């Protein structure tokens, strides 16, 4: 135990000296700043900026309603449609309204992207406007409730946490392990009474501590409190163990830091993208469960956004711990064989 502590403190001191700490603090800081630049939800966010073209003939009732809704719709008039397109491309407006060619009395909406938040907001505003003007019966769907709690900032939190875990697991740890191999530091350490297992445990602890510090810093900056602290901590613990062990294994597969960095990125990106973007693609949704990172991302998403609890996620944390143990054992075997040392 004494040797493990000495090695762990030495590893943390190295991380401090070689600026690794700056990296793990910079990433949450970057996330915090980025999240604060996201569009706020609420009235201000729902206000849309549209363009009307002067020489087009719009239905008077529609124009009247739009002009009356100044709180929700900001209208700009342009000479021709090309001017409107230019403004749209410059992101100065959200959409251009033109009379519909085929349906008299209707409008066509031109936006940058059909499935964007701006397009949805314009449609929602105009639907409400039309209902108010015509006094139609209520919509069949009169409100939308989301299982996910919190705002846009919180929605992205599981992705950022996953990114931090993978960054430390797949980039920082393999490089540190490879550095100790490359500089023959491991050779020097193993001439002391420390056992291979003690060195490995110290490295896993280093990875877990770095991940905890980074995640904690992210939560403190953003004032994000998890819904179920215990369940959340268990998954961070399991995930940090799993990916720290994976990182150490990757480090053992490399002779030097440069190759560890390359191999790390090769593993980092595939693990990050499908897991974090599986919600937006059916194909990625099918592929993502095969990646270990998904077994961390899904529970995090569930706990942070959907009020999920540990009891219903036994497979996920057992998977993470099982994979971590396997990687730990493989690292031990490579270390015993002095692989690429």
């Amino acid at each position, binding site marked *: 135990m004494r*040797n493990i502590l*000495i*090695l762990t403190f*030495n590893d943390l*001191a*190295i991380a401090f*000296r*070689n600026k690794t700490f700056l990296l793990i603090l910079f990433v949450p800081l970057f996330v915090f700043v980025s999240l604060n630049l996201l569009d706020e939800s609420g009235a201000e966010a729902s206000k849309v900026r549209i363009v009307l073209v002067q020489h087009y003939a719009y239905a008077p009732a529609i124009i009247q309603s739009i002009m009356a809704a100044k709180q929700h719709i900001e209208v700009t008039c342009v000479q021709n449609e090309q001017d409107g397109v230019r403004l749209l491309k410059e992101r100065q407006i959200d959409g251009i309204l033109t009379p519909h060619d085929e349906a008299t009395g209707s409008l066509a909406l031109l936006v940058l992207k059909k499935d964007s938040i701006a397009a949805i907001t314009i449609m929602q505003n105009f639907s409400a406007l039309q209902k108010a003007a015509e006094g139609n019966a209520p919509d069949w769907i009169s409100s939308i409730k989301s299982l996910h709690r919190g705002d846009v900032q919180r929605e992205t939190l599981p992705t950022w946490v996953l990114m931090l875990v993978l960054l430390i697991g797949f980039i920082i740890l393999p490089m540190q392990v490879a550095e100790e191999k490359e*500089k*023959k*530091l491991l*050779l*020097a*350490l*193993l*001439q*002391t*009474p*420390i*056992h291979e297992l003690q060195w490995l445990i110290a490295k896993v602890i280093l990875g877990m501590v770095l991940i905890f510090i980074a995640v904690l810093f992210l939560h403190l900056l953003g004032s994000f409190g998890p819904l179920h602290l215990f369940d959340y901590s268990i998954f961070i613990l399991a995930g940090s163990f799993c990916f720290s062990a994976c990182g150490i294994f990757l480090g053992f597969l490399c002779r030097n830091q440069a190759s560890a960095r390359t191999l790390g990125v090769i593993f980092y990106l595939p693990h990050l993208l499908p897991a974090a973007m599986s919600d937006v693609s059916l194909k990625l949704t099918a592929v993502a469960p095969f990646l270990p990172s998904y077994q961390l991302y899904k529970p995090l998403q569930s706990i942070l956004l959907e009020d999920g609890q540990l009891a219903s996620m036994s497979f996920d944390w057992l998977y993470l711990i099982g994979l971590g143990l396997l990687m730990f054992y493989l690292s031990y075997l490579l270390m015993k064989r*002095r692989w690429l*040392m």
Partner: protein
Amino acid sequence: MQLEILNLARFYDQQRGLAPTSFTVSKGEMIAIVGHNGAGKSTLLKVLANWINPDAGIAMFDGIDLKNRAALVGKVGFIPEVPNLFDVFSVEYNLRLFAALTHTPFLRVEEILDDFNLLAFRKNRIQTLSKGLQQRVNIGRALLSDPSLLLLDEPTSGLDFEMTKEIHRLLKTMHEAGKTILFTSHRPEEIKSLATRIMVLHQSRLIFDGPGEAYFRSEIHENLYA
């Protein structure tokens, strides 16, 4: 005999490694291992340091199998050609770290700093020191646990005249203190001034094992450095 080697072998491929080799070493000997690059010198030292496992043969030190790392910790010190120290930390930090790991009193760190003329550099980071100074720290680190067998892989490689002289002085002091020393070298004058016995490895095989005078008179020396 302090060190007994019987048919020790390590195979990398057909060209490199160490063919089955046998020899014995008495306590207090200073042996130079000589040979071209790739002859197997470093491989032999790494096997003796228990850094790599042999593919065949037996190596015993004071009656203990060299594979028994736990039993030999602190008794064998290996110093590679390139100093293997935590270069972002100071001289003192490195020595104290290894002292803590080898359960050596910190008083010994002060002794090493004094013996190796490192007191003035104790707070300097390793990366700011010259290679000669780094090698001094490296040898000092290996001596923390007072090992009786020292293995040095080209200890003066890349050092200037003054630093080479300093390392020679340290090696002679350790030899006089009764330590058994095996070192590899490409420098005839170094071998002549330090070694009490010379072993020549050629193409992974031990082709000469004898006193320095015999070696320098032999054709092997002429062929090696012709």
